[in-house]
């Protein structure tokens, strides 16, 4: 029912006499449409109305002002989850009014976290980079001029062409923070024949990934939370971390059905608050707890016999560890009991501080949950500690023991739930191996040793001619940011630095080109992520471009539809690649040819059209609606390729592939032409897992062959910040600097005002008892001393953290210098950075967050001043010698602030950080491994080059 106000007689007369404005005249604001019938409520207008949806303006209400929108789906860019978004494009102004959820997205199902709708802030940011900018003066000087895309493309392409023609392919690097793409850069970098992919993974998840990869080849978990009976998280996935929105939805669904949740976290996260068991483990002790649980499961016979017997390489284990012993499953169990005899609950409790009885209780509940046991670790303990990869290895051990790998309610390998797009051109793998990315000292490193780049450059291992940083801010996000500044300022080490980013950032300030690339509603991408037991793809598209196309006014390039000349990487890379090889003689241009118009340059629509036409089930679903595959994805933004994906390892090996193959009677391995292609289990030829044995590798030959025999089986590795190393009376603590907030995302949310007003400061969490013994009160200024410097922050005295542990949240502590363009003013302090000589750097806040005048009235309403403190820059690099992960946790010494200290002060000695880099480098056991390999062949690596390059000459 539509309600309108009924005026009194007095009011009616007053309005007639024009004494007051007439609020009751017949509206000519237009009539809106209905999304649901009278009395009912639905979440979203139906897709049949998405070309023209009319609803009432909220600000004018109760005056009915109808506004017409075109609803265009896209995918959020603020974290890897890529949740569905529906952009409301005002047809009159051709601007995006708001972004809501896309009900057709199989993972997010129409719902978003706070960062989804806040995308609007990032798009409307009055400080955003709208045009390509080129530096004037010295790098880092702060002066910029606007240039044309044409000049940028010609300059960079020319430089790359020269490098490639001179065989300096290893001097080209594409360093990516947030990819948000799948398959695209594999195509582009291979077309260039450049081993150029460098990623942020080793400051993110490579620790956890290695632990999974060494078990099953696949390197990430995909928990089926919705169907689980027991959920164990070594993470805070009800509030942060990749896929937290789709995961949180399903974790809560399971809990409402009676599932129980246990969380291992030294800090009381929101997730721990909602859990049934908060296990506040001392950082790094998690594998001890997990192995104690494994021991309970093994000793009490709670394991899944069938799964262990069929799918674990226990025969190899017995052969190597107990040669001569009969290869029986019973002997395997006896062996396991011996291996883990000392991981008693009491021992685990001593290491972790978690109550021994709780450990036993949780272990038994896990055993009872059996195949419906879902787990997750992405970062947290696996990315904080030396040997953190043991966290995921021991966590996965519990899944293996309960037979919950790939089962409903269990934990599948990620690749089963991730769609791989079929690109129109598949250039051969590159014939280079770039040691600046994957050096010989770290043969098992799961992704690139990206955070060591400044140190490699300092050591003279090589140089970079063309360096792309793409939505990537190492100066701020990475450890040892001042070493990054030193490297970036050196034009002999980095010839050309092009920053591809939507906003100014601490790293962009040290670039030669700052090239604006669109946000989630301003670019094309295809994405697919392992959010649940299904397989889906989503399409990120520039919504204004799509709206124009729907309105019959198509444009050639995305920057024509976006604000300013904001472009997108996809089209940029195609143009750049085209210009690197103008006559095709380098063999590069051919990969950019259209698959539909021979000899012509591929357009972005053609690129995606091809992928969608080759996505199983999509053309059929589109045809059922009379649409092409591309039109279908433009309309709905997402497609569910498969649902209920389980037990893919049991999929049969195609009989054609079995021709001429032989089966090993000991362990069932099916070999053909010297390669393992499957494994026989229960008489069936199954495809298995991508490991040498095709099974879950409890016993790893790889670890033996690559000089780490002590870790051939799941074990506990004491962290570099183990309690033994701490002198509490000296104020020494372990700092956990990685915890995240549900509303922020690295350094991309600094220009999102609705997010910054919720979270803008990051005091140091310290347990109340610890604070009392140090005489520190809540809010007091403290100095946090790291191995290479210190930062001055406020104390947050709390009962929400384990004694002996302090924590400081990520995302906060942004800055710009006086000379830098103003940006992220909701979150960035203005600082003064000074070099004191001999690698000593100082940073002091000169002005904190202030209201300012702009075309956005909200900027004058900023009600906070506190912009937090930058901590990451005071951390030395800690490369794990095996996984290559930067071990984030720091041993710090806390003291009351000293005379002259000011909130936000930072001090770093980069000569000291270089020493520490060398200390950790000395922990490695470098290649070559067997056969002169620089890395095990079976261990995949991103953008895998030609196998020939795996051999050290």
């Amino acid at each position, binding site marked *: 029912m539509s309600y309108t106000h009924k005026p009194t007689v007095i009011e009616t007369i007053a309005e007639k006499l024009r004494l007051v404005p007439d609020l009751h005249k017949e509206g000519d604001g237009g009539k809106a449409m209905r999304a*649901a019938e009278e009395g009912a409520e639905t979440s979203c207008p139906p897709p049949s109305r998405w070309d023209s949806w009319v609803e*009432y303006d909220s600000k004018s209400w109760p005056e009915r002002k109808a506004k017409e929108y075109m609803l265009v789906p896209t995918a959020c860019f603020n974290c890897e989850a890529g949740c569905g978004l529906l952009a409301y494009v005002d047809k009159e102004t051709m601007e995006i009014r708001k972004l809501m959820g896309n009900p057709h997205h199989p993972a997010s199902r129409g719902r978003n976290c706070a960062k989804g709708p806040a995308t609007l802030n990032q798009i409307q940011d009055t400080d955003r980079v709208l045009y390509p900018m080129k530096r004037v003066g010295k790098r880092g000087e702060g002066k910029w001029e606007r240039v044309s895309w044409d000049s940028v493309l010609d300059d960079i392409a020319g430089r790359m062409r020269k490098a490639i023609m001179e065989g300096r392919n290893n001097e080209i690097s594409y360093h990516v923070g947030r990819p948000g793409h799948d398959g695209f850069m594999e195509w582009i970098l291979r077309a260039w024949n450049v081993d150029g992919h460098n990623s942020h993974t080793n400051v993110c998840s490579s620790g956890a990934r290695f632990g999974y990869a060494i078990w099953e080849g696949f390197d990430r978990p995909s928990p089926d939370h919705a169907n689980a009976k027991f959920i164990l998280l070594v993470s805070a996935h009800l509030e942060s971390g990749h896929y937290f929105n789709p995961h949180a939805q399903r974790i809560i669904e399971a809990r409402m059905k009676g599932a129980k949740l246990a969380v291992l976290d030294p800090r009381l996260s929101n997730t721990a608050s909602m859990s049934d068991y908060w296990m506040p483990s001392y950082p790094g002790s998690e594998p001890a707890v997990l192995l104690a649980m494994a021991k309970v499961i093994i000793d009490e016979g709670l394991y899944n016999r069938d799964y262990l017997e069929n799918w674990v390489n226990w025969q190899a284990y017995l052969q190597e560890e107990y040669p001569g012993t009969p290869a029986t499953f019973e002997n395997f169990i006896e062996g396991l009991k011996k291996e883990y005899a000392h991981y008693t609950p009491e021992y685990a409790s001593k290491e972790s501080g978690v109550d021994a009885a709780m450990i036993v209780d949780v272990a038994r509940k896990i055993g009872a949950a059996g195949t419906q046991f879902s787990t997750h670790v992405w970062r947290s303990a696996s990315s904080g500690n030396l040997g953190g990869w043991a966290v995921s290895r021991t966590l996965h051990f519990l899944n293996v023991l309960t037979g919950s790998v790939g089962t409903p309610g269990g934990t599948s390998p990620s690749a089963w739930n991730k769609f791989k797009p079929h690109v129109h051109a598949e250039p051969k793998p590159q014939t280079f191996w770039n040691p600046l990315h994957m050096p010989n000292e770290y043969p098992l490193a799961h992704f690139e040793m990206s955070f060591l780049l400044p140190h490699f450059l300092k050591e003279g291992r090589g140089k970079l001619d063309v360096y792309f940083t793409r939505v990537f801010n190492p100066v701020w996000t990475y450890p040892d940011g001042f070493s990054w500044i030193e490297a970036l300022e050196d034009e002999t080490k980095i010839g050309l630095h092009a920053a591809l980013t939507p906003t100014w950032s601490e790293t962009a300030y040290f670039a030669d080109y700052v090239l604006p690339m669109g946000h989630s509603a301003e670019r094309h991408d295809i994405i697919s992520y392992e959010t649940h037991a299904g397989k889906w793809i989503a399409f990120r598209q520039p919504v204004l471009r799509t709206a124009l196309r729907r309105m019959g006014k198509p444009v050639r390039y995305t920057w024509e539809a976006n604000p300013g000349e904001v472009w997108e990487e996809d089209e940029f890379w195609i143009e750049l690649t085209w210009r690197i090889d103008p006559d095709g003689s380098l063999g590069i241009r051919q990969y950019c040819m259209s698959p539909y118009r021979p000899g012509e340059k591929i357009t972005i629509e053609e690129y995606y059209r091809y992928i969608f036409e080759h996505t199983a089930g999509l053309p059929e679903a589109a045809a059922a609606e009379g649409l092409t595959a591309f039109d279908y994805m433009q309309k709905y933004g997402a497609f569910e390729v498969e649902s209920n994906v389980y037990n893919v390892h049991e999929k049969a090996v195609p009989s054609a592939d079995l021709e001429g193959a032989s089966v090993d009677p000991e362990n069932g391995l099916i070999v053909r032409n010297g390669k393992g292609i499957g494994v026989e289990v229960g008489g069936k030829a199954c495809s298995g897992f991508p490991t040498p044995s095709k099974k879950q590798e409890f016993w790893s030959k790889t670890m033996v062959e690559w000089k780490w025999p002590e870790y051939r089986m799941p074990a506990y590795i004491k962290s570099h910040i183990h309690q033994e190393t701490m002198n509490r009376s000296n104020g020494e603590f372990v700092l956990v600097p990685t915890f995240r907030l549900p509303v922020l995302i690295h350094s991309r949310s600094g220009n999102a005002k609705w997010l910054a007003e*919720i979270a803008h400061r990051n005091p140091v969490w310290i347990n109340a008892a610890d604070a009392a013994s140090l005489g520190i009160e809540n809010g007091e200024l403290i100095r946090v001393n790291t191995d290479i410097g210190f930062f001055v922050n406020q104390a947050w005295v709390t009962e929400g953290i384990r004694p002996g542990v302090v924590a400081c949240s990520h995302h906060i502590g942004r800055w710009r210098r006086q000379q830098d363009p103003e940006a992220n003013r909701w979150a960035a302090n203005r600082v003064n950075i000074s070099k004191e000589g001999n690698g000593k750097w100082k940073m002091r806040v000169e002005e904190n967050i202030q209201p300012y005048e702009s075309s956005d009235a909200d900027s004058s309403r900023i009600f906070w001043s506190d912009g937090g403190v930058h901590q990451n820059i005071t951390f030395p690099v800690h490369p794990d010698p095996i996984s290559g992960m930067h071990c984030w946790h720091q041993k710090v010494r806390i003291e009351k602030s000293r005379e002259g200290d000011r909130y936000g002060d930072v001090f770093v000695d980069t000569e000291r950080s270089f020493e520490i880099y060398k200390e950790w480098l000395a922990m490695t056991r470098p290649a070559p491994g067997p056969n002169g390999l620089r890395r095990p062949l079976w261990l995949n690596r991103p953008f895998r080059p030609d196998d020939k390059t795996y051999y050290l000459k």
Partner: protein
Amino acid sequence: MNYGFVIDARKCIGCHACTVACKSENEVPLGVNRTWVKYVEKGTFPDTRRYFTVLRCNHCAEPPCVDICPVEALQKRPDGIVDFDGRRCIGCKACAQACPYNALYIDPDTHTSAKCNYCAHRKEVGLQPACVTVCPQQAIVSGDLDDPSGKIAALVAGEQTVVRKPEKGTSPKLYYINGDGASLDPLQAPLQEEYHWSAQSRGVGHFAGKGKGAPGIEKPAHAAPKAGPKVRRVYDIPSKGAVWGWEVPAYVTAKAVSSGVFLVFFALLAIFRQQLPASLEWGAWAVSLVFLALTGGFLIKDLDRPDRFSSVMLRPQFGSWLVRGGLTITGYGAFLALWGGARFLQIPMLETAALWGGAFFALVTAIYTAFLFGAAKGRDFWQSPMLLVHMLLNSLLAGGSALLLLGLGTGVSPEFSGLLRQMLVVGFGLHIAVMLIELYGKHPSVAAERAAEIIREGSLKNQFWAGSFLAGNLLPLLLTLVSSDPAMLALASLLGLSGVFYTEKVWVQAPQRIPLS
């Protein structure tokens, strides 16, 4: 149809998606919120836990904001949604005092009041509120409470629920499943200057962009009694401050002078059968008139939309004491004019009628504010029956002091000043007693007691004890009692007048320093 909400705290993960989705949908300015999430932590490690509570308008079945709004800018729709119309709002901010739940804010863009309105513009086309749509857990449920087949009715009937402040009689229609008492009670975990992710350093809403600092946080005068594990507020929205500033006590004081002068004037003539010199009579009349104009002036000055002040009379909501007060003041003014006209034209019968009529209206003028404040259900301290007597006494004291000054100025008989002195002594005495009863008597609620505490021993203690009690009441009482020296009496009058202002200032300010959420 009867729309309401359920917040299912079994599912809420405190992610703030609802906060931001609402901002986006309703283009809410920075610093103010239609919905938000409050975090409270309880316990000692390792038995610590954090609770998330989504707060916003409860779409009460008996909304006090609707009752108090003078211009029907807030309305309860027949379908249960409490909606608002920013085009009508005059920015009097009475609704912000009436709402016990901190749901209303002043939009710094339009300078009008706003709050959650169930996304009525979306409801109109069959869409759910934006917060319901975005919530990853579907922890916010909206719908028709009267529809037994619907989800929300089933939840409210089938699960244990709580509502905020049921004792207020507002009949809230927002039900919390698994609601946490310590989080829903605003007085349990006190406000903080800094939270774990945020710290307010400037004003918001009515105070946005005005260059002022953050509103002060009242520190409790005594440590809270130990009732259980530690409870701590670790995240909350910025404080909107005390939106009724000096303008409101100024208006009350001017009104007290205007009505009081005429009331005492009436008493002297009609009850005490005094003969007053014409100059004094004209002087009293002029003072009444001028201060009545000042009353209107301060009222208009307080409005955030002074351009719409005429709406109080031309778009009236007759249930509102602001409208009733406006009519009363108008009636009083009319009788004042009548008296002046009758005296000037020398029509004694009309003059007498005007005197009695004016006195009646002056009485109502003096005390109606007590009813207005009583309708402010968010401010327990004003729900006192003593408030009426307090207002009347202030009026008589203001009037008496002003008349004494006038009398001293125009030269009157010692009998006259003696009479006034007696009236003032009794008045000051009674007023002191009433204030002490209001401050030290037993209060029916904790919020009222806390407000009294703020005056007695908190942030307002200096203003009260020095400005109101000593200088404004006790000293003038003593002076009036012992002295007949005109200079001393004049001083006593001036002190008494400023005392009225200080008293009202403190009385208006104190309860606004008690958190509502």
